[in-house]
C-alpha cells in the first residue's frame, strides 16, 4: 500500500468521522461527556491538514498523523488514536504483503492503546474494537486474502464488536462511573472505529 492510496482511504475515513459527529456525541453522552464527535471532527481536520502537507512515505505519514493528533486533539480518544498511529508508524516499515502490514499495524496499535490506556479486552473500550480488528486482520493475512477484502472483514468485525459492547459493563473511562447507563448502547469509541474502517473499506471498493 503506497502513501497516496493510504491518504485516499484516510480522507474517506475523515469524511465519515465528520458526518458521524452528532451520532458520536450522542453515544458518548449516554455515559460520558458527549464530546467524542467534537474530538473526532478535530481529528479529521488535523488528518486533512497532515494529508495535504504530504509526507516522505507511509511511516512518515502515520507518524505525522500521530504527532498532529497528540498535539491537537488530546482527549482520551484523541490521545489513544494518536498512540495508535505512532505505533502503526513504527510497525509498518518492515515490508511484507499489504494485508500482513495492515495486521502488523493494527496489532501494534492495539498494544500501544492497551499500554497507554491500561484497559483490558472486555472493559468496553476502544481496546475491544482494536482487538477484534487486529484478530480479523491476522486471520486474513494467514488466509492470504487481498488487503481490500481484509479491510472489509476488519470493518465487519469492528461493527459487530461495537454492537457487542452494548452488552458490556464499562470498566474504564467516564462510562465506568455509571456502568448501568451504558448498557444497551454501543461504546462510542468502538463505534467510531467501526465508522472509520467501514468508510475506508467502502473506499477501497472491496
Amino acid at each position: 500500500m503506497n502513501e497516496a492510496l493510504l491518504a485516499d482511504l484516510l480522507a474517506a475515513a475523515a469524511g465519515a468521522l465528520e458526518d458521524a459527529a452528532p451520532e458520536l456525541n450522542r453515544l458518548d453522552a449516554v455515559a460520558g461527556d458527549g464530546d467524542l464527535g467534537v474530538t473526532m471532527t478535530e481529528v479529521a481536520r488535523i488528518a486533512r491538514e497532515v494529508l495535504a502537507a504530504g509526507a516522505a512515505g507511509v511511516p512518515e505519514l502515520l507518524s505525522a498523523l500521530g504527532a498532529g493528533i497528540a498535539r491537537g486533539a488530546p482527549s482520551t480518544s484523541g490521545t489513544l488514536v494518536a498512540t495508535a498511529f505512532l505505533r502503526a508508524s513504527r510497525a509498518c516499515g518492515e515490508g511484507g504483503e499489504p494485508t500482513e502490514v495492515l495486521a502488523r499495524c493494527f496489532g501494534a496499535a492495539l498494544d500501544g492503546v492497551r499500554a497507554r490506556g491500561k484497559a483490558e479486552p472486555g472493559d468496553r473500550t476502544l481496546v475491544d474494537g482494536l482487538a477484534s480488528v487486529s484478530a480479523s486482520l491476522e486471520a486474513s493475512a494467514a488466509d492470504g486474502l487481498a488487503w481490500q477484502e481484509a479491510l472489509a472483514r476488519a470493518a465487519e468485525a469492528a461493527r459487530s464488536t461495537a454492537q457487542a459492547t452494548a452488552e458490556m459493563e464499562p470498566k474504564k473511562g467516564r462510562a465506568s462511573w455509571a456502568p448501568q447507563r451504558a448498557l444497551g448502547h454501543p461504546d462510542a469509541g468502538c463505534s467510531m472505529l467501526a465508522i472509520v474502517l467501514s468508510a475506508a473499506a467502502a473506499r477501497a471498493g472491496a
Partner: protein
Amino acid sequence: MRKIINHPKAFVDEMLEGVLLAHPSSLRSPARRVVVRADAPRQGKVGIVTGGGSGHLPLFMGYVGAGLADGVAVGDVFASPSAEQVLEASRAVDAGAGLLYLYGNYSGDVMNFDLAAELAMAEGMEVATVLGTDDVASAPETEPERRRGVAGIALLYKVAGAGAEQGRSLAEVVAVTERAGAGLRSMGVALSPCTLPAAGEPTFSLPEGQMEIGMGIHGEPGVSRGPLRPAADIGAELVGHIVDALSCGRGDDVAVLVNGLGATPVEELYVLYRSVHAGLVSRGVEVRRTWVGEYATSLEMAGASVSVMRLDEEILGLLDAPARSPLLARW
C-alpha cells in the same frame, strides 16, 4: 445556546487572550495554551503544574498564583491538554527543585500528564504526581484509583501550593498533599445540563424540577435522578455520603467547601451550606474553615457540590497560608 462567544472553535484561545490581556503582571504564556505565573520559575521552589479541560473556571487556570500552582496546560472544553503542553509548562516552571503534577483523575488527562512526565524526566526534571480523586459518587471506596476529581482539588492546590511556597522538598509536598487528598471527599448535585460551545446542544437532558445526585463536572452520570428536593434534604444527603466515605465523626476537624457549578446563585450555596453545617455539627464534626462560591464549574450547569477535608494542624496551617491568583482574588 445562550453564550457570549465568537466562533465556538476560537472559544478557548480567545478566552486565553482575554486572560492574558486582563492579568499581564500576574500571568504569562510561554507556549500555546500554556500559562504560568509571571514570576516563574521561582528558584529553589517545587514547581506545581496542573491542567485539564476548559469550561471549569476558576479550575484549572485560576489556581495559578502565589501560594498555589505555578503553571497550567489548558485543554479544549472538557478535553485534556496535550502532553506537549504539559511539558512546556514543566519547562517554564522548573526551578530545579522538582515538579508536582496535580490534576484531576480523568483518563485523557492521566495519559497526557503521564506521557509528559516521561518526557520531562528524560530532560532531567524530577516529577511526582498527585491526582484529585475526591468524588464519592464516581466509584466505591474500595476503588480509589477509579474515583474522579472534582472541586475538592481546590483545597489540594492550597495545601500543596503553601507547602511548596514554604520551600518544602518535593517529597514533603507530595506527602502532605496525598495525606490531604486521602481525607478529602466531595459529592455534587446537578439541576440542569450544560452545553459545549462546539456541540451546540446540551450534553444531556435534565428537565426542570429534576435533579441528579452525584453527577460529575462534565455531566458524567450520577448515582440517582429524581424530583428536585429541598435544600435541606440535598445537604443532608450529600453530607451523609461524604461522612460515610470519610468515616468521620465526633472529634474530627474538617474544612468545608460548597462549590457552585456555574448557574447557581451564591445565595443558594449559602442556603445549602446551612444544612451541610448542620449535618456535620450534628455528627460531632467540627467545621474549622468554610469556603462558599465557585471553585470548579461546569460551564453554565446549575447545581452545587460539597467537599469535606479532614484537618490536622499541619494541613490547617497550610490552608491558612497566604495565596493569591488573579482569577480567584476579586481585588
